[in-house]
């Protein structure tokens, strides 16, 4: 018996531009990093494949421009893929390439299966709606039409992310960055999604708040068994959270393995550089 992955990604490709004779062939394209100098096409993600198992945290590291966020956007259907497949292991979606579903079906996946925490809370929250409303939005989208129920759920979630309840009806724009981020996490968790995406969640937060948010994420994983994909360029964050890690460079996976293994004994030249440049 082997464990089945909850999310399988196969050969995800995302390019910006049409490509030309120089760069169309996958095997011998002449690129400057991920950029074709003759036609200007950017190959943001090139053949990314990985599995995510139930209850695990998968870390994704790489420098800026390595395709981390583009990959997340593709997985969360914020942007379309150029080609590739993804399979979610639930009874309704089994065997279906989710990239090829209709936009309604994709929205249903976002509402029922996925949770997303963006680097910038502006993208994940409606800043001029109350915090409670923000969480309810996701519940409403999933079909809930009972106010008392949704308020109770929001209250419980906000409490679990340490937002004082007397501020629950306040708009997130009045909150500090760390609080906004925690509201966003509460929102992402509101439907008990089996898969959670975290895109640079602690970037830009001060250290104590960072520790707070990381604690929270770890606790969520322990208590709820949610599978997560954590994107970060901060190796300390990856070391603390991730069970397995993937290293991206120029849109390609150059190394993957257990986090300790990758960070203690990096094989690829770039990973070595990355690990040893840690202050």
């Amino acid at each position, binding site marked *: 018996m082997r464990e089945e992955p909850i999310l399988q990604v196969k050969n995800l490709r995302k390019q910006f531009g049409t490509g030309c004779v120089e760069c169309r062939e996958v095997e011998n394209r002449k690129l400057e990093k991920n950029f074709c100098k003759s036609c200007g096409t950017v190959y943001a993600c090139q053949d990314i494949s990985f599995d995510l198992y139930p209850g695990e945290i998968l870390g994704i590291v790489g420098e800026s421009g390595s395709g981390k966020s583009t990959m997340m956007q593709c997985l969360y259907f914020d942007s379309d893929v150029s080609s590739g497949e993804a399979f979610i292991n639930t009874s309704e979606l089994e065997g279906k390439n989710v990239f090829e579903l209709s936009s309604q079906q994709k929205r249903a996946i976002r509402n029922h299966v996925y949770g997303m925490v963006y680097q910038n809370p502006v993208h994940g929250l*409606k800043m001029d709606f109350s915090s409670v409303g923000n969480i309810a939005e996701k519940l*409403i989208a999933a079909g809930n*039409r*009972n106010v008392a129920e949704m308020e109770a759920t929001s209250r419980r979630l906000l409490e679990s992310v340490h937002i004082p309840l007397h501020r629950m009806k306040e708009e997130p724009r009045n909150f500090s960055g760390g609080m906004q981020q925690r509201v966003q996490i509460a929102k992402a968790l509101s439907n008990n999604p089996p898969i959670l995406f975290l895109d640079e969640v602690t970037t830009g937060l001060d250290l104590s708040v960072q520790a707070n948010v990381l604690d929270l994420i770890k606790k969520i994983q322990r208590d709820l068994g949610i599978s997560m994909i954590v994107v970060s360029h901060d190796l300390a964050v990856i070391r603390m959270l991730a069970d397995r890690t993937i290293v991206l460079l120029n849109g390609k996976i150059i190394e993957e393995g257990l986090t300790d293994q990758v960070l203690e004994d990096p094989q690829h030249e770039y990973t070595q550089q990355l690990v040893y440049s840690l202050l």
Partner: protein
Amino acid sequence: MKANTHFAFFDEGSKKEIRRAIMKAVAIPGYQVPFASREMPIARGWGTGGLQITLSIIGKNDVLKVIDQGADESVNAVSIKKMVHETTGVELTDRTEEADIIQSRHRIPEVALTKDQIIVLQVPTPEPLRGVEASEYVTKRMHSEDDYSGVWLMLFEQIMKYGKTATTADHPVYVNHRYVMAPSPIPRFDNSKMHQSDALILLGAGREKKIYAVPPYTDVKSLAFEDYPFTVEAFEDKQCHLCGSADVFLDELIDHHTGETIHQCNDTSYCMEQLNKVEKAEVESSYA
């Protein structure tokens, strides 16, 4: 030089285009059909959407009634009536029963409409999702994908803030179980009149360049949460100080001399009708 205006102001090409938009709107209940809103001799936002519909569908034998928030004699209603009359010569009326076409700003008359009538509503903001999404491109997609969580969220926010849904007018409705529609800023009191209406309901937004419709005998359901059912404005124990009607939409007025609060029918022609009935009864009984 004074040129003769064409019948009903518009050239036939314009009427044809607007009628086509109306046909499409009727075919897809609650769907906002874009149309080439014309420059009108009144300013946009003053009923140009309704007026364009009225002018496109009116015929020589039609009888027209125009009301502005229940009143037949308000400046806006009178100006529109005059303009249509001057360009068509159709008969005008205040009585709801006599009218073939009723153009209305923000009210549906108290007298039940019949299958031979058409009500044309003037709409300032046709997009029920505008409060949550500024981009037309996105709202169009949301409609096509049946994604109405934004509208529900607005109602949820109101409940959080005020303990109830606080839509004073323009409470969003589901039309034919598919499209969420702004019923134009009619009071919630009038929402139920749209449900399974005998009359055809046409809605026109001139500034926003949209026409939409509720065909006769279509289901229209006001949005409401399970534990916060839809309610209309309540006028318990209140009645019109002129005609005594109780189960109608009332305006609240404050008497400047006495400081007293009084209530009066919002639908002026209905009120007049009731008063005339009372007078007629009085006269007949005193002669008898």
